């Protein structure tokens, strides 16, 4: 299986550890991967702001860069949703190359559960974890059931995390309300964006969340920005980092030593 890593631009630049954790998780499950170095950005910031024409060359670049891989895996529901659901203005529906690249683009938990059929992760993570359901993963990619809908759906991330030893989950008052990031919304509607973020964090504080995790670093960047400014006692981790840490903790001693001496 020929898997390409699609590491969102802001993760590449500001959260390299999330990309590296993705690599570790994929390797743990025996996935061979490569990182096409020509990749930059899926074009979502431009498209979400209404500038379709500014997003077009980036969408075209994306398809060029990722053409030919069996899967394209990203630690982001939002960027994957952009590629899968919002590239229609840029490509003809009979453009087989673009359609194939779009269909093969997958969010990490989706790839682990639906492609690799992983139902259990051997690992230990003895913390109280609060899951933030990032909206695009939730309501675009349908990676878990949304509270508004009565349609039954699997909860991919929880199904993976709950198999870790020692993990417990916090119970939120509003299980899937938006954090208020929303791309440029975070700046153009700064007041409401920050109020939404604070409300999310307070929900996690009342639920005694130690580790706040999500499938999108963008939501976490916003939430962590508020947490750090207000010096609140919550640590933020992408779920790839969480799984990588959990797996690490049960790696046999000799392997761990070998890794440390590398």
């Amino acid at each position: 299986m020929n898997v390409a890593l699609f590491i969102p631009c802001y993760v590449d630049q500001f959260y390299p550890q999330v990309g590296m954790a993705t690599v570790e998780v994929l390797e743990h499950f025996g996935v061979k991967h490569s990182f096409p170095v020509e990749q930059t950005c899926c074009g979502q910031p431009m498209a979400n702001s209404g500038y379709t024409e500014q997003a077009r060359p980036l969408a075209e670049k994306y398809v060029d860069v990722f053409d030919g891989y069996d899967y394209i895996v990203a630690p982001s529901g939002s960027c994957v949703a952009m590629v899968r659901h919002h590239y229609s203005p840029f490509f003809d529906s009979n453009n087989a190359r673009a359609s194939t690249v779009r269909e093969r683009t997958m969010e990490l938990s989706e790839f682990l559960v639906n492609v690799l059929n992983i139902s259990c992760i051997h690992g230990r993570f003895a913390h109280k974890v609060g899951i933030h359901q990032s909206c695009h993963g939730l309501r675009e990619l349908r990676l878990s059931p949304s509270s508004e809908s009565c349609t039954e759906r699997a909860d991919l991330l929880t199904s993976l995390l709950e198999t870790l030893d020692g993990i417990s989950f916090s119970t939120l008052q509003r299980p899937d309300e938006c954090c208020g990031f929303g791309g440029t919304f975070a700046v153009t509607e700064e007041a409401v964006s920050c109020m939404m973020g604070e409300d999310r964090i307070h929900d996690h504080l009342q639920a005694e969340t130690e580790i706040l995790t999500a499938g999108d670093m963008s939501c976490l960047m916003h939430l962590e920005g508020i947490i750090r400014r207000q010096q609140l006692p919550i640590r933020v981790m992408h779920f790839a980092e969480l799984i990588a840490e959990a797996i690490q903790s049960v790696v046999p001693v000799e392997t761990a030593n070998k890794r440390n001496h590398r």
Partner: protein
Amino acid sequence: MSHPLLAEQFISRRDRAAWHDRSLWFVREKRDRQANDVPEWEELRKFASDIKQHTMSRLPNYLEEFERNAKALGVHVHWAVDGDEHNGIVHSILERHGVKRLVKSKSMLTEECHLNPFLEDRGITVIDTDLGERIVQLRNEPPSHIVLPAIHIRKEEVGACFHEHLGTEQGASDPKYLTEAARHHLREQFLAADAGITGVNFAIAETGGFVVCTNEGNADLGVSLPKLHIACMGIEKLVPRSKDLGVFLRLLARSATGQPITTYTSHFHGPRDGCELHVVLVDNGRSQLLQSPEFRRSLNCIRCGACMNTCPVFRRTGGHSYESTVPGPIGSILAPFRDPDQHTSLPFACSLCGSCTDVCPVKIDLHHQLFAMRSRLDHQQKLGGTKKLTMQLASSVLRHTWFYRLAGRVARYSLRWLPRFLIYNPLNGWGRQRELPSAPEQSFRRMYEDRQRKERP
């Protein structure tokens, strides 16, 4: 003013914004319980969406069928191309009957057409009889929500308003006491009225009848006492058959207020003996919307308000921050479609979370339409300023990998080494209440490269 400014004002009274958010979230939770109690909820939504889509695909035929059948029942049917014509028609009917006092049950259409000031300028007293609408009318402000018009007003403020206008005790804020006072006040208005106006929730093509849903019974009282009843409706309110009501009535109240059904669901089929019944069908831009493949699904809206109750932005910024008769997610499509200059900021008053799409009982893909509306505004040359320049610049950088890598390096280096006051400058909207990410020395691609090199020396 644009939405962000009005939103900031609303949020500056933080306790109030939080209270507003909680009040509407309470309604959203009631809605969830009701929806979950109906095992076929998602099928009902699908039915409703299909029926509406079908109706819209042959709207002219159904409108003519409705007109024919309504006339056969003895209803006077009028057509208005816009709000002005609508107001003119209503006024001429009232004038003919020498109406001086009018009671009106809730009708967002008459709000849209600004009927009240039009009639008041012509010497007719208009009394809104829905309790929430009466409150905002007495306070001389527009409704802030299409189903809960006074949701932004606290009971103490209602008490003060009633003390001033209805003579209730000063400082009284007990909802039961205030409601009782409003009932007495409204009862007098009903008895003194020469005519009643209602909106229309559903008009039925095959019968020529229509249905009005209220919780207070004010529509019934308002049209049962006077001899003249005028019903005003947008042309999208049509359903083909009576039995379609079985789908929509089950969805409407559950979605709107979390009730299984509205307290009163009144069916009107022709005038009472010795009375007159008029229906005014209003287009006011709806045909244009119908012609737009991208946005026509917005016409499916049954005005339940569920998208407002669930919208995290609406809940925290209040309906008035939208400056549009229909606020919230659906209003942020309808308003800029009609008047892009006036409502440019509305499609951006949204984090694209998609909650509205999932609650919508008629399955309007609201957040995708909001997304598409942003692009439409750009094509109409309505967007501009620094945001556009920034995006153009970003797009040119991101087109070239080398340029992107360079820009990334510069950004990380600056974040690491510039003094804090330069980074957290007044132009940095992100940094007002949030920290920026702490920039790492290396990008992922560098780390990946190193790792691969070590693995395969």
